[in-house]
């Protein structure tokens, strides 16, 4: 009954390497290659299992959960702006990060379920891919509404959001996986995108550990509020996600994954979009909170808690 999976130990050793100043370095090209792999593989896996559903049956539910995720930045913003006393730009940018999702946290959640042999809905991946859109749009509006300065270039921003690498690769993976599932030609591709998934995730988490160690130092200097926010806000959103999942009748595994999506926050797509949309926000703040605090919290403590939440909701009624 091991609650810590071997794969997350790679993250621990990455952090440790940063802390003890080991000269361990992951080549930039490897980091980028692994992240391309993970996004495609996550999408592909989801797409293959979506091939088992009538797509039109699940779409309304999936889209509802995407639309409702706009509530995340709307909740985060007032907390950050009025309790945290952040500038409008920073509060909006951080909201966008927390409304968005972390594919790697999701992957750790999937691995957690796999170790427990718990099934989940394949279309959670599609929700993940699409959740970026309301989060980044809402966050930008919050950051810019009424503010002076240059006008937001919405065309450019929407292009960045809709064609951004992570959304593109996830959706591509879903479509190809779905097609492969339909025509029953998953087989030679699964050797790469499914069998190697966990091993690639291990490497990636090692690098994430190195990156998080560097970020944590920076965010610690930004004060205790942002750290508390990085721990408490995901718990709140995780509970909200679990509640929604239960309401919408997802399986226990799916409920937990929705909680993970709501609780996790972005450190790839959101920073790129916010750099463009809210250049006056401080990226060290949002990245520090999401990568330095919330990401480690989620993969170690959050994921098991969200599982308990899902379990609890499913135990109250049939």
């Amino acid at each position, binding site marked *: 009954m091991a609650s810590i999976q071997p794969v997350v130990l790679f993250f621990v050793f990455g952090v440790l390497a940063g802390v003890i100043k080991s000269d361990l370095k992951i080549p930039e090209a490897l980091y980028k290659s692994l992240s391309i792999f993970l996004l495609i593989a996550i999408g592909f896996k989801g797409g293959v299992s979506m091939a088992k559903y009538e797509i039109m049956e699940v779409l309304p539910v999936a889209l509802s959960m995407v639309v409702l995720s706009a509530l995340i930045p709307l909740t985060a913003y007032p907390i950050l702006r009025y309790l945290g006393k952040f500038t409008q730009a920073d509060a909006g940018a951080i909201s966008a990060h927390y409304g968005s999702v972390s594919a790697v946290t999701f992957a750790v959640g999937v691995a957690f379920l796999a170790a427990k042999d718990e099934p989940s809905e394949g279309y959670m991946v599609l929700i993940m891919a699409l959740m970026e859109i309301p989060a980044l749009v809402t966050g930008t509006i919050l950051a810019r509404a009424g503010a002076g300065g240059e006008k937001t270039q919405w065309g450019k921003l929407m292009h960045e959001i809709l064609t951004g690498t992570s959304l593109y690769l996830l959706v591509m993976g879903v479509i190809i996986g779905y097609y492969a599932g339909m025509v029953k030609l998953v087989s030679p591709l699964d050797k790469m995108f499914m069998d190697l998934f966990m091993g690639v995730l291990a490497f990636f988490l090692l690098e994430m550990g190195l990156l998080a160690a560097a970020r944590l130092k920076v965010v610690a200097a930004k004060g205790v509020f942002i750290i508390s926010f990085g721990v408490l806000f995901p718990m709140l959103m995780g509970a909200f996600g679990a509640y929604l999942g239960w309401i919408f009748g997802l399986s226990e595994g799916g409920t937990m994954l929705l909680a993970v999506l709501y609780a996790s926050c972005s450190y790839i797509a959101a*920073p790129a979009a916010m750099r463009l949309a809210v250049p006056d926000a401080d990226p060290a703040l949002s990245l520090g909170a999401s990568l330095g605090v919330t990401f480690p919290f989620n993969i170690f403590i959050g994921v098991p808690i969200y599982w308990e939440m899902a379990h609890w909701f499913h135990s109250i009624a049939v």
Partner: protein
Amino acid sequence: MNNTIAMKRFEIVVGIEQLEKLTELLDRCSVRGYTVLKNAGGLGSLGIRDPGDVMMELENVMVVLACKEDQAQRVLDEIRPALKKLGGMCLISECQWVEGPAVSY
């Protein structure tokens, strides 16, 4: 020095996202040669840019350009107003071009 031509040397540093605009501008000035060094980092009015930071993805380019005096004035006239949008830095210095077989200035 013999066999050399007095010229102006431009050294321009901008964010890589501006490189296309910059080379278009140089094309408009009918510049016939320049050298591009990517993967540059640095410190400027917008803070630190480090292309090795995979999370931030901020990269500069340095463009080095040698041209004759009259051409140089044209480049300067075009680039000065453009710098406002491009950000970054532009230095000009004196240099001697060693005559070779090709004329790419």
